[in-house]
């Protein structure tokens, strides 16, 4: 790991490094900068220093032999024998990362009665599917699941482990990464592989105001989570290309102190990640009842409605309908945002949408930077107007 050090005898005390620091980790003290606990060694100050008085000290830790860890492992998530689509998207990404390298793509699948699911995975270009199939895995327990994936990792020694950033994945991955004493980067939006097998991970940081490029330089495996609908699933091949390896359960599964009490299916709720058309309400809505208008427009267009974070914080709706880093990522065919300013943590979670129409009063709103069509105007005129036109259109059709 690295540490930033200021060489006092070279420092001119100009203060440029203090201004350049994004982490507020540098302060002038007695005419010289002082680094405090906020420093993440990003190196911005090094580039800012004209006197070349700032250096990065590499503290050489115990570096792992990277050649002993090869391949990419995807944690495949299934529910009731149905694969979570994020698993296929991760396989797609892993395959594209592996192209032109010696890495192969493998998956690990856990659950009860999952043979069909494991066979299905073999049609997506994976080399092997490690299957842990047991009634003991019929419900998710982070400790028991972590024991199985740990077993798979010890067998395969993959360089990279990709996990879907689902409720399950985000509970499982931190346990595993900690167990292997290695790095985990959450919610990556872009991944690439270096020749030395370092995974270059890009994710929104600081509430999404900036992007951070992160590596795990000294340890293996490198864990990353990716949200649903960020990567592309590969095409299914008719011929199975991989093989299923059935593994016996590690002993730790039986030792889990967590016991199952009950399972109740949730009433089929609207899933904004699955919708083709979304209408989104934002801070520009003045009162809770105005959400009705957003709902009505969504329903007239045959889509779902969603909200940005301020509305969830006001308690107008639950985060089930929230788009953003603390909500969901969406990628619909059409998205219409109404009074959403488009802070980057929102934009980062919807900017892959095929067609983006933004309505906002403020011509400077950041949402206009991601919109294909930006409408500078009052949502209280445009939305009711559009609703009236759509209704008239429907009636004309019916008539």
């Amino acid at each position, binding site marked *: 790991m690295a540490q930033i050090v200021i060489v006092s005898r070279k420092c001119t005390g100009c203060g440029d490094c203090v201004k350049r620091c994004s982490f507020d980790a540098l302060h002038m003290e007695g005419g010289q900068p002082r680094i405090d606990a906020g420093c993440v060694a990003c190196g911005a100050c090094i580039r800012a220093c004209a006197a070349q008085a700032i250096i990065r000290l590499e503290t050489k830790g115990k570096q792992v032999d990277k050649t002993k860890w090869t391949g990419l492992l995807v944690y495949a998530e299934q529910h009731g024998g149905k694969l979570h689509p994020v698993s296929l998207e991760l396989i797609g990404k892993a395959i594209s990362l592996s192209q032109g390298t010696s890495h192969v793509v493998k998956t690990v699948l856990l659950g009860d009665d999952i043979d069909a699911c494991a066979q299905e995975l073999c049609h997506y270009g994976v080399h092997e599917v490690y299957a842990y199939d047991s009634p003991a895995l019929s419900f998710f327990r982070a400790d028991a699941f972590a024991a199985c994936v740990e077993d798979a990792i010890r067998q395969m020694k993959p360089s990279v482990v990709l996990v879907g950033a689902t409720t399950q994945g985000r509970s499982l991955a931190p346990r595993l990464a900690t167990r292997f004493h290695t790095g985990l980067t959450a919610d990556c939006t872009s991944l690439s592989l270096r020749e030395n097998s370092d995974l270059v991970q890009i994710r929104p940081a600081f*509430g999404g105001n900036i992007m951070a490029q992160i590596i795990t330089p000294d340890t293996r495996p490198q864990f990353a989570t990716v949200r649903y609908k960020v990567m592309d699933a590969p095409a299914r091949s008719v011929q199975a290309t991989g093989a299923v390896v059935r593994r016996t359960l590690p002993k730790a599964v039986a030792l889990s102190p967590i016991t199952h009490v009950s399972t109740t299916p949730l009433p089929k709720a609207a899933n904004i990640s699955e919708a083709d058309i979304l209408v989104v309400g934002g801070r520009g809505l003045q009162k809770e009842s105005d959400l009705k208008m957003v709902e009505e427009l969504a329903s007239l267009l045959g889509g779902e409605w969603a909200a940005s974070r301020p509305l969830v914080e006001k308690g107008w709706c639950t985060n089930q309908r929230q788009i953003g880093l603390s909500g969901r990522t969406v990628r619909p065919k059409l998205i219409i945002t109404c009074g959403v300013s488009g802070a980057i943590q929102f934009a980062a979670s919807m900017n892959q949408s095929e067609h983006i129409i933004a309505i906002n009063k403020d011509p400077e709103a950041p949402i206009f930077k991601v919109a294909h069509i930006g409408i500078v105007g009052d949502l209280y005129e445009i939305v009711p107007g559009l609703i009236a036109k759509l209704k008239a259109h429907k009636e004309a059709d019916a008539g």
Partner: protein
Amino acid sequence: MRIFVCIKQVPATNKVAVDEKTGVLLRNGVASKMNPYDLYALEIALRLRINPGDTVTVGTMGPPQAQAIVREAYRMGADDGYVFSDRRLGGADVLATSYTLAQAIRSIGDFDMILCGKQTTDGDTAQVGPAIAETLGIPHAAWVSRLSVRDDGLDVVQQLQDNVEVAHMPFPCLVTVEQDICTPRLPSLKTGLAVADKPIHIIGLDDFLDTDAEHYGLAGSATQVERIFAPENDAPRECWQGTDSLERLYTHLHQRKFI
């Protein structure tokens, strides 16, 4: 029952400006607050404090200024509060942060239950809670939307994909809670006066069981931030400003076959 609640000080607003040329965050005097999701964890802890001898302890890793949120927790009714503050703890990633918190919790004492908010509003990773549980070697459940004490353990309700799952975990265990689990109380003025001088413990690396600085902060982190940059922004492809926007929008949706 002894309960520990992990809290964190975060910027009060996420509307932080970024210099688009340099990618530098412009955060001149941004105010701080307690991570809003931690309030739910603290509220649940206070509600579970029923029997004589039950205690709620809060702790945060951060600079000395983080005392402000411990004071806030006191005003809500917490019994004891810690700030884990040390220059050598800085720059920590998930691995080093969870290791620090686990060490700090261990050095304070034994707890039956550790509660965390589901995530922070600045990091947004939701990873530190489960990682603390792993370091301490105790079971955890994440995104818990309801919980109750039963048989020397907890019944936890989690919404996982299409199901509501109820599971039982014995103490000691760690839980991260959803925001709809309860409505946090407001800090009380009366309690505020009573706890205005209540001491806040500030401890550092030398107070931990493991005092090897290599395991903490930047040195103990497995990940490394190589660079930070402003998100790419595409220019708007079209911008409509006139009074005919509604008409154009309707026609546009029609042409694109959305209507």
